[in-house]
């Protein structure tokens, strides 16, 4: 600690250089934290996928619905415990305004809820939800966000053409669900579920099932049952594609995998560039201070101590840049939803926020970058001979 003022004074010596290095480092850490947060948000709910669930969808695209009649045929297959139709409704409170967007689904509640123990709902609320055609259950986060309570009503209008019926759908909050993230990590409590029949009837029974969620008795038979389901409809107009819930989510968010690779690549490239910039800064600073290093050694500072001082200075630069970068990241991510265009894209992500883990990772990366950047100049100072350095003055 007694060397800290010495280190700080050196950082203040060329404050423009120090400030620009800290700024470069902070931009790097800011990018790292923001990109990691983005990737984490995209891939977050993959964690909650269950091995006992299969998802059947139209073989061509998710855009096309499946016939309602498929349910009975799937349910009759051996090893199948239950089947529930689900449709992504894509509703928003104001048409084409996604500022208040939250994920909303039409589901066959009686079949769907037993498959999803992660949605924890009091029994009386569950009953009320089942009995009310306009009823819905909403996640705690969405309830808190809009201040909705049991019995409140609200309207949603879908942007998907088949679900647009000339007026908004009206819903009554019959249940507010929580979850236990320790048991069910990745569970989204921003989602809203309503009766599939409400959608079906309101659209004049013209829509089918977006997907069928299938619960199977033995996860080891997932592949065989998936094949059996698809084989059922091989010769029909609407062929199916069945896969595990995890594979479905991953393919649905196939973008996520590539995006993660791309964003991680960008973050790594930026970090490497900043490493070179900081290493250059440290090398310049050390070259200017050759005499000082020689003087310190003459005064009795050991080579290891001189090396430690340089590394500490470099690490301090990193830590400072990391702190500023994380602060920038927190502010940016908090306000990301207000950014035009980009805000609409990220609003649907549950759990969007700079997690302590990413912040710690970002800070550690900054510290490591700082230390790595200072390593070569520190090593050169360690190895340098006093007489050589004094002679070169």
């Amino acid at each position: 600690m007694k060397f800290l003022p010495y280190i700080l004074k050196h950082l203040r010596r060329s404050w423009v250089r120090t400030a620009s290095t800290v700024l470069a480092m902070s931009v790097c850490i800011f990018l790292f934290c923001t990109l990691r947060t983005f990737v984490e948000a995209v891939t977050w709910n993959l964690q909650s996928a269950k091995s006992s669930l299969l998802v059947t969808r139209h073989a061509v695209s998710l855009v096309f619905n499946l016939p309602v009649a498929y349910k009975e045929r799937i349910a009759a297959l051996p090893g199948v415990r239950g089947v529930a139709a689900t449709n992504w409704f894509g509703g928003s409170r104001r048409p084409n305004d996604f500022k208040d967007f939250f994920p909303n689904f039409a589901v066959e509640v009686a079949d769907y809820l037993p498959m999803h123990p992660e949605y924890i709902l009091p029994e009386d609320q569950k009953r009320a939800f089942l009995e009310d055609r306009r009823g819905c259950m909403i996640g705690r986060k969405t309830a808190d966000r809009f201040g909705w309570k049991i019995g409140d009503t609200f309207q949603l209008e879908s942007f998907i053409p088949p679900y647009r019926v000339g007026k908004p759908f009206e819903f009554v909050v019959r249940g507010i669900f929580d979850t236990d993230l320790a048991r069910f990590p990745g569970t989204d409590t921003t989602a809203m579920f309503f009766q599939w029949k409400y959608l079906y009837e309101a659209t004049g029974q013209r829509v089918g099932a977006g997907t069928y969620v299938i619960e199977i008795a033995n996860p080891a038979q997932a592949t065989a049952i998936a094949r059996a389901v698809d084989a059922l409809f091989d010769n029909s107009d609407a062929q199916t594609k069945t896969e595990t819930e995890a594979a479905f989510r991953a393919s649905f968010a196939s973008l996520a995998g590539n995006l993660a690779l791309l964003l991680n690549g960008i973050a790594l490239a930026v970090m490497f560039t900043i490493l070179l910039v900081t290493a250059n800064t440290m090398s310049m600073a050390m070259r200017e201070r050759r005499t000082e290093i020689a003087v310190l050694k003459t005064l009795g500072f050991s080579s290891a101590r001189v090396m430690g001082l340089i590394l500490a200075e470099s690490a301090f630069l990193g830590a400072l840049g990391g702190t500023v970068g994380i602060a920038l990241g927190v502010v940016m991510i908090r306000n990301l939803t207000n950014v035009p265009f980009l805000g609409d894209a990220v609003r649907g992500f549950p759990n969007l926020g700079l997690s302590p883990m990413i912040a710690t990772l970002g800070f550690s990366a900054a510290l490591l970058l700082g230390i790595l950047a200072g390593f070569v100049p520190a090593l050169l100072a360690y190895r340098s001979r006093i007489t050589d350095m004094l002679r070169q003055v």
Partner: protein
Amino acid sequence: MAMVELQKVRRVYRRDTQEITVLDGIDLTVPEGEFVALMGPSGSGKTTLLNLIAGIDRPTSGVVRVAGTDVGQLSESALAQWRSRSIGFIFQFYNLIPVLTAIENVELPLLLTRLSRKERRDRAVTALKVVKLADRASHYPRQLSGGQEQRVAIARAIVADPKVLVADEPTGDLDARSAEEILGLMETLNREFHKTIVMVTHDPRASQRAHTQKHLDKGVLREEA
């Protein structure tokens, strides 16, 4: 008692395939409390000899014993520790750290001790008082004249109370008046604080202030006055 003792010291530098003998069989004894001036033309090996005495260079052969320690036998870290305790170095160009104030520069060697912050400060103030610069404690080197900078450098050299002071042309970058002040100060340190001083100088007037003058020529001690 000999404070500095050199026996058959050789220092050879290797440049590519060529060997350059800078010091060739130097024998030198400096008694405790002595003030010695090392003189000689450029390239005669004065600074190399001083560096060997100060423990910032090692002899190619021979023995360098300072304050009873065989300097050549110490490891790198032990030598650094020894320097911090036993040697005060005064440079020609002062070599103060520009981002530190006068008192912080003086305090620098004490950072290697276990003294408390207050003790370090007190000792630094005392050293600055010895060089009559206590009133400039909070000034940065750029705010001081050359003579004042050298006095701060001397305060830094004596703050850890070393037995030996080595000075490499301490007046070489100063005007006559400042040089006179510095030489007076070194005399005081020798006379009143009993420091053994080895000073390299080109200046005959400076060498006159020493008790003994030694002349180096082409790496050999030629004569003693």
